[in-house]
Structures are given as structure tokens and as C-alpha cells.
């Protein structure tokens, strides 16, 4: 800091000023696109106040020296002048903002090449035929072929029924393909090929390209025709002697062909919901009308468990502008806190040994610079630790042990869970004169973890 005595005041003032100015410009641009008379003025006032606050904060950061204070006062004065100027220059700001936005867009967009770059190669007819198999409403794109209901029933039983049921009624959670007519306006509409799909081409196209699940693209054209014929039959839309082919395809009208309208949100919803929202006293009171059906537990090994929420809305306060009507302290809430939310932080209950080994591996980082372990481990500053447990202390050939371990070797002391634990608790106490400079592991569970980790290398 002292190296650059002048740089700090510059940064202190210039950065906040640009920051606030940028915000004003940005906001000004956003407002320019709408016509909020009062809000625009309010907004600017707010921004000017922010510039003022910036100046105040900057003042607080000033160094004590009088000279610097004078400089700061000047800058602060300039800030105030700039703030006042802002108010009278809305139009200019908006103009500049437009220019800035325009420039930014230019920078962000890659140039559209004026000429072709000559990349890629011409797609061959055979290649297009292999991939371009879509079928559009009316049947354009269909290949030659045909299939009848009887054949379709067999193919369906063989390739589709395991998920969709023998009668296209759907197994488990898999899609129901048949029935559901006149349910679309019900509380629980059943949207099937028969009741909902507006075009037959969609069924042919999808089955041909994406079914059967796990064997997509393997159906012949005739098989696809026959499956579609069978689905129509299972929806009672054709008789059992029906045959579907490219020639009669276009004639088939689906039950729900007129059931769709184009997105009309712009006309119906946007016109209503593009309004200035209420900020205060928007409602007299608010009650909870429903609590979450499921509590979702999040186990450590992934996924979720959904549990029915037993809580009732009766336990909860009503809210008004004065706040909640009462502060409930219910055991139920506490239970939920303990059971459901707490589940997110459940301590892992995986195999305790595996966990210990993993912990031990981490702790072993402390030892790694001097001890190697594992396949091909060699002596470093300390002996390698393969086959440690059960081996005689000071017994690794070629390692220069301290007098402490030479003695231990002579006495035929053995590395065991117990001796390792004692050694690691206070190495220099247990083996007086050891060359090992490590201070030891104070925590018993760390020592156990190391033991479990090293035991892996036997």
C-alpha cells in the first residue's frame, strides 16, 4: 500500500463512481423501453442518493492526512456535481446506453460469413435416406408397406407389451396408449394415442424411429404399420380386419385432431400480467391452504425418499400486515425438523470399516513424505510400510534404523494394533531416540484409521 501512496484514493473513488454510473445507464435503458413516468423519476432519485452514499463511504475511507482530505473533498464535490448533472441528462444517458448496448451486441456476436466457407461435404442420397425418415401430418415421408391388426397384435405382444401392456393399457408407470376418451377435461386426463394425439403420422414416426425402447430403429416398415394398426384397434378406432398402408394413411382422422390451439399467452396472459405490481397491503390476510404432500429425504448415497407429510394446516398462524397471528411451537414442527430436514445432513452410515480406511488414507498424507506404502513401495526417509502389522520392528533390510529400533529389533518387538497405537500417540516417548520427527496423532480415532488403512497393505 505504502508503495503506491496515490493509487488508493484513485481506486476508491473511480471504481464506485463507474459502478453506480453503469447501473444508472443500465437502468435508464431498461426504463427507456417502458413508459413509467413517476417510477423513472423515483429511480433516478434513488440512484442519485446512491451516488451520494458512495461519496459518503469514500469519505470514510480517506486517509487522515489533510492534503488527501482536501483532494477527497474536491473529488466529493465533483461527485455531487456529477450526481446533480445526472438528473438533467436522462435523455443523454439513454442515448449513450443505446450506443453501449449496440456495441456490446457487436462484440458478442460472431460475424456471419458473407460468403460460404466451403466447410463440410455434400450429403449423399443414401445418407439422407438413412437419416431423414421423419413422417409429417398427412403421411408425407411414409415408405411403401402395410400392416394389419392381427399381425400388429403379435408384433405388439412380442416387442411392446412388456411396457405398454397387452392391450396398450400401460404397465407400471409406462405410457398408456389406449382409451381415455373424453377425459381430457377431467381432473385427471388420460392422454393416449387415441384420446389425445392429433395426428396419426406422429405415432408412425415415433414408433419407427424411437421404439421399441432399447431397440430403436430395428422395426421394418410393415411391422410399424401393423403396430400402428393394432394401437388404433386397441383404441376401438378400427375393426379387427383393418389394414393400414401408405394409401389409406392420409384418410385417417384422429379423435383429437381439433383439440389443439396455438400458444395464445401473449394475447390472454401477457396483456394482463404486464402491470405494475402491488407493493403494500396487497391482501388483508394470508392463510396457509396446503402443506407439502411429501417430505423429501436426501440420503447420503444419492436419490431421494419421499415420505408423506403428516402435518396439518391447522397448526399454522394467519398472516396480516402486522405479521403472524401467533408463533407456534409444536412438537410436530420439531419432529419434522429432526426427521425430514435433518435427513439432508444424515451422517453417512455406510460400511464403517470402509469409512475408516478412507479417513486413514487422508491422514496418511501426513506420513507420505517419509513413508511409502502399496505396490512397489520403497524405503524413503522412513521404511516402507507394506506388511507392517505383524512384522518385527526395525526389520526392513537395508534401512538405517535408529538405535531405538535396532534395540526393538533385537528384543523381537512386533508391530501390532496396540504397539502402533502407542508409538503413534507419542513417537518420541514410545521409541526414545527414533529419527522420526513426526509429533504423533493425538486423536484415538485417527490412529485407528491409520491402522485400518495400513492393514490394507498386507
Amino acid at each position, binding site marked *: 500500500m505504502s508503495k503506491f501512496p496515490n493509487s488508493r484514493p484513485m481506486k476508491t473513488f473511480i471504481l464506485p463512481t463507474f459502478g453506480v454510473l453503469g447501473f444508472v445507464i443500465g437502468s435508464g435503458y431498461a426504463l427507456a423501453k417502458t413508459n413509467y413516468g413517476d417510477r423513472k423519476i423515483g429511480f433516478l432519485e434513488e440512484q442519485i442518493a446512491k451516488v451520494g452514499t458512495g461519496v459518503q463511504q469514500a469519505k470514510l475511507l480517506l486517509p487522515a492526512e489533510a492534503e488527501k482530505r482536501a483532494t477527497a473533498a474536491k473529488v466529493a464535490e465533483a461527485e455531487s456535481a456529477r450526481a446533480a448533472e445526472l438528473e438533467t441528462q436522462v435523455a443523454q444517458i439513454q442515448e449513450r446506453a443505446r450506443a453501449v448496448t449496440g456495441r456490446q451486441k457487436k462484440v458478442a*456476436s460472431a460475424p*456471419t*460469413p458473407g460468403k460460404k466457407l466451403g466447410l463440410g461435404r455434400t450429403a449423399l442420397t443414401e445418407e439422407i435416406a438413412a437419416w431423414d425418415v421423419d413422417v*409429417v401430418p398427412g403421411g408425407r415421408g411414409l415408405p411403401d408397406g402395410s400392416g394389419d391388426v392381427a399381425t400388429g397384435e403379435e408384433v405388439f405382444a412380442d416387442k411392446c407389451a412388456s411396457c405398454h401392456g397387452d392391450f396398450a393399457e400401460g404397465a407400471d408407470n409406462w405410457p398408456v396408449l389406449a382409451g381415455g376418451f373424453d377425459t381430457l377435461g377431467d381432473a385427471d386426463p388420460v392422454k393416449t394415442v387415441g384420446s389425445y394425439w*392429433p395426428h396419426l403420422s406422429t405415432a408412425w414416426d415415433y414408433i419407427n424411429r424411437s421404439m421399441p425402447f432399447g431397440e430403436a430403429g430395428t422395426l421394418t416398415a410393415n411391422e410399424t404399420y401393423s403396430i400402428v394398426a393394432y394401437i388404433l384397434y386397441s383404441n376401438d378406432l378400427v375393426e379387427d380386419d383393418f389394414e393400414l398402408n401408405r394409401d389409406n394413411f392420409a384418410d385417417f382422422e384422429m379423435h383429437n385432431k381439433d383439440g389443439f390451439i396455438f400458444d395464445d399467452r401473449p394475447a390472454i396472459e401477457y396483456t394482463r400480467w*404486464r402491470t405494475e405490481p402491488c407493493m403494500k397491503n396487497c391482501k388483508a390476510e394470508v392463510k396457509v391452504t396446503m402443506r407439502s404432500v411429501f417430505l423429501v429425504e436426501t440420503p447420503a448415497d444419492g436419490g431421494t425418499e419421499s415420505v408423506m407429510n403428516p402435518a396439518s*394446516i391447522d397448526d399454522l398462524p394467519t398472516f396480516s400486515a402486522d405479521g*403472524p397471528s401467533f408463533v407456534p411451537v409444536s412438537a410436530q414442527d420439531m419432529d419434522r425438523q429432526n426427521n425430514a430436514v435433518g435427513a439432508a445432513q444424515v451422517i453417512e452410515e455406510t460400511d464403517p470399516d470402509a469409512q475408516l480406511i478412507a479417513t486413514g488414507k487422508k491422514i496418511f498424507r501426513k506420513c507420505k513424505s517419509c513413508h511409502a506404502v502399496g505396490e512397489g513401495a520403497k524405503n524413503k526417509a522412513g521404511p516402507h510400510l507394506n506388511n507392517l502389522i505383524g512384522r518385527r520392528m526395525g526389520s526392513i533390510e537395508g534401512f538405517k534404523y535408529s538405535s531405538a529400533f535396532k534395540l526393538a529389533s533385537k528384543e523381537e518387538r512386533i508391530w501390532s494394533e496396540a504397539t502402533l497405537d502407542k508409538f503413534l500417540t507419542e513417537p518420541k516417548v514410545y521409541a526414545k531416540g527414533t529419527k522420526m520427527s513426526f509429533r504423533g496423532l493425538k486423536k484415538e480415532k485417527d490412529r485407528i484409521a491409520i491402522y485400518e488403512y495400513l492393514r490394507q497393505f498386507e
Partner: protein
Amino acid sequence: MDYLFKPSRRALLGSGAFAALGIATGGALARDPDPLITELQDWASITGAGVDETPYGLPISFESDVVRRNVEWLTASPISSINFTPIHALDGTITPQGCAFERHHSGAIELRKEDYRLMINGLVDKPLVFSYEDIERFPRENHVYFCECAANTGMEWAGAQLNGVQFTHGMIHNMEYTGVPLRTLLNEAGLGAAGDLKDKWVYVEGADASSNGRSIPMEKALDDVLVAFKANGEALRMEHGYPVRLVVPGWEGNMWVKWIRRIEVIDVAVESREETSKYTDVYEDGTARKWTWVMDAKSVITSPSPQMPISHGNGPLVISGLAWSGHGQIRRVDVSKDGGITWETARLGKQGDTKALTRFYLDTEWDGSPMLLQSRAMDDTGYVQPTKDQLREMRGENAVYHNNCIQTWYVNAEGVAENVEVS
């Protein structure tokens, strides 16, 4: 030193729980010097992990619960299913690829760059096949965009269902995509053969078994759609469409075709399975709205929320959340603590991104009394995020898709939050 060496491993493991309690009750109440400060800690003394240990890093083990999660009973098979971004635990706006939600219709596939082909055919002057290498030779752009599944919050149409913002709002991610504008590739093939472009479409499909074909009006295709090959600076993850996916800014996630292999210029919408039987919105009288591509303005408080209870007691509280709009920028977010009676305008984080997540904060004080937390986004068209009641009035409860309602969390005096609906 001569103690009995007889540890109970389970007991020692259990003691971790007491350590956790220590964290919760420490802090302000502590009178004794904090041993974490006064005693030499291992990490301040011994050395840590070497640079050769983690060639590609995952989050530290302490964050292992911040993962994508699925809700098994929602779908028949995890191969054709969805999981949820842990948005409760993220901040800022960028979603790491590794925890960005996945939606596959036939599973995520492994497709090598060498085996990748992109075909442009149909009403073009010259049908083309590009290799992966070809794609990277076109001028490219970088943009941050949100990708939201049309079914995000879809379970909530019928009422408060799942307790957790990860599950009510986690079918969303926000990444910086690198890619070539689709218009550039279309120009390379030449659109002369398409004639008047006004009523033309591009039909896009993926290389996976579902192919997931969708029709996109030409106007959008020539506007801001990207053929992308990087996300957040690195190659797309397998589950996000490696090596190349489509990015359709502001529009429903199903159109962002992964492993994109074919783009066909065509004179009609194909009316594929994904744009008729699915991703259409059924209204109360049984009629359905189709081609509902844009994701309207929406916001949600991510903390506090059911997975993020207030654990620190009364005093300063940061209420934080996300807002986005498929129409453009977020202009403002308001937050209510009383279920919509009174609103305060939140502070926006980084602003100015279009069709991207915007972070908002309300830096406030909590007095320990229960709250009904809500957030309400406004975008730069002036559109204000509707309440559940407003949406139901217009659409009923069976639309499945495009639920952008205001979400409510009831926070009790203990700071525990729950998904609720209010009057």
C-alpha cells in the same frame, strides 16, 4: 500410555455428531478460547494434497450432499427420466456441469468426436455433412443462457407436492455456452431453396435412440440458436450432449436437442411425439395449447428453503434466490415475508444477461417469527410473475408444463422451511 487398547469404532464414528452440535452451539456462546484458533491444527502444520493427486477435481468431500437427485416414482425408468439441480446449495448464477440437471429420453450416450456427424438437409441449396472438426472452424460465440425443462415446477400444479427447491425448481441450469450460430450453418448449406422463410421450419433431431425431434420456426433458428460444443469453458459432459448440442435461448429445454445429428429445413412442423403428445399444455376444458415454446418470467427463493433451514437464529439473514425470463432480462425481483401482503425490492446480482439466470438477494433481519417467503420476478417486457391462483384461473391444474407461479415457503420459528400454498 498403558490404557486398554479397546476402541469402539461405532462410538467413535458417532462422536462426529457431537462435533457437529459443537459447531451449532459454539460461536456467540463460547467463553473459552476457541481451540481451533489457540491450538495448532494439523492443516496449519502438515502438508496437504499434492498437485498429482487430483488431475480433475470434484468438490471437497464435505459438499458430497450437493448432488443431482432424482425422484424415482416420477417416471417408469431412470433411463427415460429427469433429475434435479441442487439449486438450494448453489450461489451466483453459473451451474457447474457436474450437477446440472439431466433429462434423457433414451439415456445419455457416449459419442466420440470422431464418430460425430451433423447433417443439414431438406430445403437447402446443398445438403451437407459436417464433422466435429468442421463445426469448430466456423466463427463462434459465447453466451450464458438458462435451460429450463418445460415441466419444471410441473408437479406443483395440483398443490404443494415436494418439499425442497431442488425438486420444485431444479429442472434448470445456467451455463456459458460456446457454439456456432445455427444461421451460420444454414447459410453454409444455402437457404435459397427454401424460398420465403416466413413459414419455414427447421426440424432438429439427436443421435440417441430417442432422437427427440423438434420443429423450430425459421425466425427463431435464424435469431439466437447456437450449435454448441462447450459449456462453462470445457467440452460438454456426456449427459449434456457431448460432443454437440443445440441451445435454444429462452425456450423450453426439450428443444435443446442433445447429440444433435440432423437439421432439416422443412415447410411444415413435423408434429413429432415431443411436440404433440408431450410438451403441450392441457387446459381445464380439455383443449390443449401447442407450440408453447417460451419460458415466461419466474423466480424462486433458494435460501432459506426446505433444504436450507435458517440455522443461525435471529439477526442478519440473507434471503437469496434466482430469477429468469425467456423473453429477455430480469428487471426487478420483489420479496415478501408475509405471503404477499407486503413486498420489498431485492438487490440484483450481476445484471444485464438476457435469457440467463439472475441472482437476487434481500439482506434483512429476522426476528425469529414465522414467515411466508415469496419472490416475484419482473422482466424487461414488464411481465410480472403470476401467483398460483392467477395461473390456475387461466389454465386449470392439468397443464403439466410452464408453471411459473410464485412459490411460497413457510418458515417456522425454528427456521425450518416448508413448501406450502397460501390463500
